[in-house]
């Protein structure tokens, strides 16, 4: 059952990703990407990460992709622009690089199977079930990773300032 669900969502994610990179219209690309992100959120649930799945939907599919669409519309780029996708040479290079890369990644996967480090099956699922989805992530986040978490706020502040400075016409 889980496997069927996983492969269904995986197929949707991959197909949407292919459509995302091949559609000429940026808006279509963005919407297909949203589709991929939703599928990934579903896969996260299957992988015992319901909190991350929720964040994925809220932050990624919600906030970030809306930002993308907003910029596309702001700049009035919605219609298909000529020369967006490269010519035959560019396509050949892209496909060849993709094939080599997927070969390498699979080789990497086969070369170093993560066998020895495995937790007993269902450990994470048990933790999530026992503590609840949010608390399972909150514990390590606010204990072991407290300083990085606080540093992240500085990063976000810098990003806000940077975005304002860059996008504003005149300060």
């Amino acid at each position, binding site marked *: 059952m889980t496997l069927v669900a996983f492969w269904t969502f995986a197929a949707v994610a991959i197909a949407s990703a292919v459509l995302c990179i091949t559609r000429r219209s940026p808006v279509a690309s963005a919407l297909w990407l949203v589709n991929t992100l939703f599928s990934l959120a579903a896969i996260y649930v299957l992988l015992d990460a319901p909190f991350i799945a929720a964040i994925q939907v809220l932050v990624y599919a919600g906030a970030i992709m809306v930002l993308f669409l907003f910029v596309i519309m702001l700049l009035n780029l919605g219609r298909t622009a000529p020369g967006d996708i490269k010519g035959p040479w560019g396509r050949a290079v892209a496909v060849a690089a993709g094939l080599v*890369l997927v070969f390498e990644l699979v080789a990497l996967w086969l070369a170093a199977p993560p066998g020895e480090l495995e937790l007993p099956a269902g450990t994470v699922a048990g933790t999530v079930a026992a503590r609840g989805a949010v608390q399972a992530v909150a514990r390590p986040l606010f204990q072991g990773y407290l300083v990085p978490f606080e540093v992240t706020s500085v990063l976000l502040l810098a990003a806000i300032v940077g975005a304002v*400075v*860059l996008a504003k016409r005149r300060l």
Partner: protein
Amino acid sequence: MLLGPSLAVSAILFTLGVVGVLLRRNAIVIFMCIELMLNAVNLTFIALSQQLGLDGQVFVFFVMTVAAAEAAVGLAIVIAVYRHKDTVNLQRINLLRG
């Protein structure tokens, strides 16, 4: 039990992101492809966190934060470039020429 398939899906999605980056000229679409690659990596983290502990999920949390910041700044840059060049087609933008 889902680890192997997850990693395979992650590899395919990552490669699709790379192919997209190489295929497109529109800055915003390339940006979206980068987001796709980030999500592929996130999938790897989540899949492995099932085996190695919850730290993987915490890491994904951070990746998302950074991705959000990156999207904000990156899109601001796109807007600024568009204002100067009237295009987001990278072929027509060669400010980096040496």
